[in-house]
């Protein structure tokens, strides 16, 4: 569907994208993941013909975006980082304008615009000025704009930036819905975002692709089914008991005030066996939990070349480098309201609410 070959973008001496290549196949949701300034937006702008590449080749359905831009653009719907909406228009007027500009015949566009508005749930606000809509609605108008003209691929650049948690869930559901009928590419600097909706992840770091895999593969690569235990008692006895359980691959121990900390990697689920073994030995397990942050570890490793220990540090740095430093809301609020949403970089996805 989309073929990218050796794409390079040079901003007056600064290489934003360094010769990347990838393929987008139909019917999947792709996630472009990377820290701020990794080249995600640049790549997306080039894919959609908004930006010229320094070198390289992009073809959309066989049409080169630089040679036959009009043909290629017909197959793409694009939502840039800031929804490109006209405040003085209503969503309906705006979408009718986009439909006409994309060459949808008028009779067809009336129905098409209505369908898109219903799908993106902006039908109720169709006659209000976009200027007066909340950020979440404006974002949805932007997504609706990308869907007009029934393009094969929909490209969304950071579609959930600056939205509140409830809106984030809604937009994600919308993206999942879109993914069933179209090819979707979204970008984000938040791993949870990508892992929540995407089938396939492309991780970009400093203008290079460092991973291009399905989510399952990446999870498998993250591997390490890990378990952390806190046991009251003697270290040697604990070692003996753990190594006796089948399925345990390796374990590391440390002792502190009569409490043993054990980090275990296992091949099969060993939690029950461990529980029974320690119960029989009358050694109470104070704490047992699986290590769930493995996907984040691999992302951090790939994207920054560091491991989890520095994650907090990185979070601070990226926050400072954020484009919208003015308004920072506490990240707590978000964690609380959505169970599967874990902001990796704290509040760095907060955006200044412009005008």
């Amino acid at each position: 569907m989309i073929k990218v070959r050796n794409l390079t973008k040079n901003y007056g001496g600064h290489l934003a994208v360094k010769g990347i290549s990838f393929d987008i196949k139909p019917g999947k949701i792709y996630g472009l993941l990377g820290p701020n300034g990794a080249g995600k937006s640049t790549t997306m702008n080039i894919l959609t013909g908004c930006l010229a590449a320094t070198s390289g080749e992009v073809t959309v359905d066989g049409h080169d975006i630089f040679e036959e831009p009009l043909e290629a653009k017909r197959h793409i719907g694009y939502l840039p980082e800031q929804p490109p909406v006209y405040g003085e228009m209503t969503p309906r007027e705006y979408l009718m304008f986009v439909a006409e500009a994309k060459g949808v015949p008028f009779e067809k566009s009336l129905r098409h615009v209505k369908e898109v508005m219903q799908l993106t749930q902006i039908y109720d606000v169709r006659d209000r000025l976009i200027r007066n809509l909340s950020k979440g609605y404006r974002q949805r108008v932007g997504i609706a704009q990308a869907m007009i003209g029934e393009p094969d691929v929909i490209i969304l650049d950071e579609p959930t930036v600056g939205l509140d948690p409830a809106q984030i869930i809604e937009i994600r559901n919308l993206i999942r819905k879109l993914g069933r009928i179209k090819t979707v590419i979204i970008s984000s600097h938040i791993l949870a975002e990508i892992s929540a909706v995407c089938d396939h992840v492309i991780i970009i770091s400093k203008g290079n692709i460092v991973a291009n895999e399905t989510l399952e593969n990446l999870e498998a690569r993250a591997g390490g089914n890990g378990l952390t235990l806190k046991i009251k008692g003697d270290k040697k006895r604990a070692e003996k008991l753990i190594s006796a359980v089948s399925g345990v691959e390796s374990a590391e121990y440390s002792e502190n005030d009569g409490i043993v900390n054990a980090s275990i990697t296992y091949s099969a689920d060993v939690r029950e066996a461990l529980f029974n073994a320690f119960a029989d030995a009358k050694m109470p397990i104070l704490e047992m939990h699986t290590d769930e942050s493995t996907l984040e570890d691999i992302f951090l490793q790939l994207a920054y070349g560091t491991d989890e220990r520095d994650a907090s540090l990185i979070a601070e740095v990226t926050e400072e480098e954020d484009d919208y430093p003015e308004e920072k809301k506490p990240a707590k609020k978000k964690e609380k309201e959505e169970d599967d949403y874990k902001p990796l970089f704290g509040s760095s996805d907060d955006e200044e609410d412009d005008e």
Partner: protein
Amino acid sequence: MIAIFKREFKSYFINVSGYVFLAAIWLFSGIFATALNFIGRYASYEYALSNLMIVLLLIIPILTMRSMSEDRRNKTDMLLYSLPVSSAQVVIGKYFAMLAVWAVACLGMGVTPIIIGMYGAVNFASAYSALLGFFLLGAALIAVCTFVSSLTENQLIAAIGGIVTSLALYLLGSLVGLIPASALASFACFAVLAIALAVIVYFLTKSYVIAAIVAVVTLVPTVAIYFINSELYASAFPKMLEYLALFDRYYTFLGGIFDVGAVVYYISFAVFFIFLTVQSFDKRRWS
């Protein structure tokens, strides 16, 4: 292109700018017509139009200031870049929208000769050919100011830049007399112009090679022609400036002459600046 034209045209009447523009031009047209035609009792609307020229250079920039710069500021230019529409179509759509607003203004002004005609003998052919000339003058000025608007994302700078440019074009005719007409002076002016062009090209492209090529291509013939036949340069520079004096061309219309040469001149002036605007709009794709 039609979609963009319609959207832009409507936006002038959703925002106040279209109304402000029409109100201003009609107000001044009315004032001059009242003063000269009704109180002064001249049965020709051309007098009012000749006074309106100075108003034109103040209000055309109000019409054009947001044309290109607002999209840049609101990031709606990203939409225009991603639509299956070429840059030329975008710019032409926007230009025709402004032209349509300007046409509405001129149509409104077209009522005045009829009113004057109710009280005296009016040469309608002369009055309406002057009005057509006025429309074309405005059309050329809109193209120039649109180009100025495409250079900035700040509407205020676009407006001031537009006014300054229009004023320069307005005064150009009078300034020409100050420039010495000798061949050497003209040669020097052209040489300076060629170097300035190369410098501008350098700042636009940030490439020494392209700037050097431009400098060589423009300077070598300039120098060569001077040494082969310096007579060619005699008063050449003032003549060129005279050619650029947009407003001076309009006086023939006021004299009751429908000057086809001036019509072609205004249209080519507009086309040239629309072309520059398309380049300026497209250039942002590259940076």
